[in-house]
């Protein structure tokens, strides 16, 4: 299956879904004005991947800033990921800045609403 690669913009995330290398990462920021429009191609790709996933799939989410419209869309992505748990050994890793209690809260919320393996991974960003 083809990869899904989206370069980061000022208000949309970097997406690297590369089944060949078994890399599935989603990072940076997600603040689009029209979240549904932006996420549509990602859903389409995920739906296709769900048909025939790798034996193991780790999704790495590392989002610094997010608007509420995106937080709903990301959860919808996770619901899709959740659905393929019978076909692939799935782990969602939610990376959050140690200073960002709201991102930890959001990750915890997602984790509690999903059945899939979900790890909260703290990182420290103290370059400045």
């Amino acid at each position, binding site marked *: 299956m083809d990869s899904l690669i989206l370069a980061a913009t*000022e*208000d949309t995330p970097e997406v690297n879904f590369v089944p060949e290398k078994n890399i599935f990462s989603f990072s940076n920021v997600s*603040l*689009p*004005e*029209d*979240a*549904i*429009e932006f996420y549509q191609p990602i859903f389409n790709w995920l739906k296709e991947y769900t048909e025939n996933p790798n034996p193991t799939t780790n999704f790495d989410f590392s989002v610094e*800033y*997010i*608007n*509420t*419209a995106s*937080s*709903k869309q990301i*959860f*919808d992505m996770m619901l899709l990921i959740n659905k393929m748990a019978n076909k692939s050994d799935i782990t969602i890793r939610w990376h959050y*800045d140690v*200073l*960002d*209690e*709201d*991102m930890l809260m959001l990750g915890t*919320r997602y984790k509690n*609403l999903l059945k899939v393996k979900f790890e909260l991974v703290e990182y420290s*960003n103290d370059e*400045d």
Partner: protein
Amino acid sequence: MELLENNHMELAYKLFKRVNNNDFEYVYRGNFTQNITKSILDLAQINLRTGIAKSSIQKRVYFIMMEGMQNITRHQGLIGDKEIEMPGIFAIQKRGSNYYVTTGNLIKKENVVGLKSKLEQLNLLEPAQLKLLHKEILVSGHISNRGGAGLGLIEMARKSGRKLNFDFNEIDDNYSYFYFQTEILSNNDKKDFSVYPFPELDKNSVIDIKNLHNTLNSDDILANFNGNFNQKNILSLLSIIKSQINKTSTSKKLYNIMVEMLQNISKHADVIDDIPSEGKSGVFFLCRKTNQFMLTTGNYIKNNKIEILKEKIDNVNSKNTKQMSDYYNYILLKSGESDSKKTGLGFLDIRMKSDNKLIYSFRNINDNFSFYALQTSISLNK
């Protein structure tokens, strides 16, 4: 029902009314760093591009802004603590086809007389003389110890093709604010000096900024944007705020809440007239009190939407922490929401992140429209 009882409601409307359709005004109050300067220039560039300004005018405005801010940064830090207590101001305004760039910064009172006479002298010079003076300084290398040489002022006078507008405001026995304004006319597009002889100065526009600065000082407002709100503007406003605040948990909250509030304007504000514009008219200001940040937005709303909006905010305000969390989950799990603009999480998220109730107010404009102000506070002592 949480009504906006402090004077910020009045202020929001007062600031909002300063700007006409398709004009804009951005005011920054605080200290200047390279990041902030860059972000302000970015924001201005976006607004200049969406306006009708020809690219030669855009460049001129850009240059004058940069020169003005560099003027502030060069002299920043000379005065010490007083500067932090009494921060300077930078304003870019578009009114019709004209642009105004104004800086205001603290100077020692002993320098007022010298500065004033220097500026008055420059204002007497003809374009050719300005050019000559510029060349003389370059050749003789009379560089002041601040690295300025007064070249900045001369260049600004040449680029604007107008007299330099300035004013002072005495703070105490030792300090004054120095306000310096450059006007750029967009029909002045041929040569730098096409309008010579320079028209007489209208002091009102610089006095207006002086008064605005007083208002912003007394309400501790750090930044204020009036104009069209669209995604591009919002992103540059956000990047200014990002450079203005430290990287802490509170600043991330502030950023996220700002995203929701500003996108609220660009997505939901109503437009009162049919004049085409790139974005929705609105006002935003950020205020810092000793123990909290306050964010205020204002925009037009159709009167028939007020009740639903009130209900929504009151509903979010009435919930306790557990109820808010349950409601958040409910919205996440609810599927089939097809309207991309209405996730329904916005107010809830703001309320949860700020840990304060949302405050709002409506002011009737006419039979169809009202002015709607919304305020969020974020406590700093966490």
